[in-house]
């Protein structure tokens, strides 16, 4: 059996959705982490960084429990839509967002914190609100960090395995991603198919990251040199 393009399409959809949503939700979290002076802020930073060190199965397990029919969230969702969140694409998106959160929020927060505070002060004395200062000064000067965060969360979601297996299962066209597909093929001793699929994923990820870093040379220079 040749490469299953449906799983690639599904994986790309998942990664794109997750990085788009992380761009949306990650920005306010990163802004808060970069500028809050709350003394317990480090607790929030630790929680955000947790998915980096946690085994994906642990994270996946708790997400599964939280989405399942015995949790308040699962019950609320089932009451609303008539079906459970677990083993659906939406459930997969939720799990992936949590799993990739640090890969978006940390570059965002680092680049926000790297913006010269004097520029932010200047914007305020010129009458700009906090939102306007963010949109006109902080965000434009953080573009390398924003691109890095979006690219990393995209790539990270492309390659995830444990969380998908726990939350999504293995439903073709719904939750079967490329990494699951490869695992299945190896289990079924279809090494040729596994190899082809793995090679396509490898090349795809390489091309993607090359494009991002090529167009965004300063991506890793998160703290601007002053």
């Amino acid at each position: 059996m040749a490469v299953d393009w449906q799983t690639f399409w599904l994986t790309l959809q998942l990664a794109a959705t997750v990085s788009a949503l992380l761009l949306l939700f990650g920005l306010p979290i990163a802004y808060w982490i970069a500028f809050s002076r709350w003394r317990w802020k480090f607790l929030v930073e630790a929680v955000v960084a947790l998915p980096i060190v946690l085994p994906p199965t642990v994270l996946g397990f708790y997400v599964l429990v939280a989405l399942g029919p015995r949790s308040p969230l699962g019950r609320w969702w089932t009451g609303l839509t008539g079906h459970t969140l677990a083993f659906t694409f939406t459930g997969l998106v939720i799990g992936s967002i949590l799993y990739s959160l640090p890969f978006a929020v940390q570059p965002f927060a680092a680049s926000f914190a790297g913006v010269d505070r004097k520029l932010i002060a200047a914007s305020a004395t010129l009458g700009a609100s906090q939102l306007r200062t963010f949109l006109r000064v902080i965000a434009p000067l953080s573009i390398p960090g924003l691109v890095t965060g979006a690219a990393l969360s995209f790539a990270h979601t492309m390659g995830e395995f444990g969380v998908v297996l726990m939350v999504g299962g293995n439903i073709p066209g719904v939750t079967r991603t490329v990494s699951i597909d490869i695992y299945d093929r190896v289990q079924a001793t279809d090494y040729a198919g596994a190899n082809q699929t793995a090679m396509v994923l490898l090349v795809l990820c390489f091309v993607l990251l090359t494009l991002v870093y090529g167009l965004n040379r300063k991506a890793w220079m998160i703290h601007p040199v002053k």
Partner: protein
Amino acid sequence: MSSTRVPAQEVDSPPSVPATGSASLRGQFRKQIVAQGQEFVLEVAFEVSSGFTILFGPSGAGKTTLLDCIAGLTKPDSGTISIGERVLFDSSRSVDVASSKRRAGYVFQDLALFPHMTVEQNVAYGLQHLPHAERTRRTGLILDTFRIGHLARRNAREISGGERQRTALARALVTDPEVLLLDEPLAALDAAAKARIIDDLREWNRAHQIPNLYVTHSREEVFALGERVLVLDAGRIVAQGTPHEVMAAPQQETVAQLVGFENAFDAVVEAVRPERGTMMCRVEGDGGPLALETPLVRGGVGTLLRVGIRAGDILLATSPPVGLSARNVIPGRIKSLEQRDVIVSARVKCRVEMEVHLTLAARDSLQLEAGKEVWLVIKTHSCHLMQRSTD
């Protein structure tokens, strides 16, 4: 000493400065500062009316923090700040107007131009509330006033130091602020460029009449710009008045250190002569006591003072001078001569050792050299008296 100089313990109440056209800036607040590892308290009371007021002091005195408190970028621990009737900050009534609503123009030390915008976009930044046409008109106008109209489309990173300074000034002034805060904005410029910007800034001020608080540690800028000077040292206003009063006759040792007297000696009041408006002070030197006739200040015989004499205020004569108004004629001998750029610094031994500054021409026409016998001539009013620091 003239009555306009205010002793340190009396400066807590703002001086009564006649109000001119616009509202004056008043502040009375305290703030704990931790800077460069050391902790001190900024505790000030001041009133700044329209025109230029210089905030002068050594680095680390709290000048920038004082401006930040006015602009709302830093919150004082207690006190009040107001522009005319408008209260910006009042700790007792929990008033703390956001910096974006204070209408305080601020030109930062490093200018803080937005690096991703053009000169024009930088200047127009504070005018977002205006319709597009009005915004363009005002921006164009101020760009021309500050002679940077031709740079409008250039990126802020691509222009020269002087042009950046002008852009920062235009950006702050185009918003019609009620007070202008300038934190050493011209520090990086050469004298000629500085003078041109100062002229343009003065021109703008004639038309707008707002209080300007201008931070510097340069003596030249104090005299070039200032109508009034506040001297800040270690968080306190230690002197205030016109540049001439504050800079020429400092009352306090800290000010003397700032303005750099080359000659400063401990002295004791030996005799007071109110009928002549002078007193005699004794300076103990290695070669015995030296008597100096100085201006009259408060304090009787036995008061401990410090005498400061500028090296440029001392005359040198090669024969005993006669028929002079100067009260102090002191014989001595030249110990060494040293040329520094276009002045000659002579060290003269006369019981104490004094530094005297001369021109190259004076050295040559008097044929001065080490070992030559000379007479030092010092006017009474060239002897500046300060309280001796007791700690």
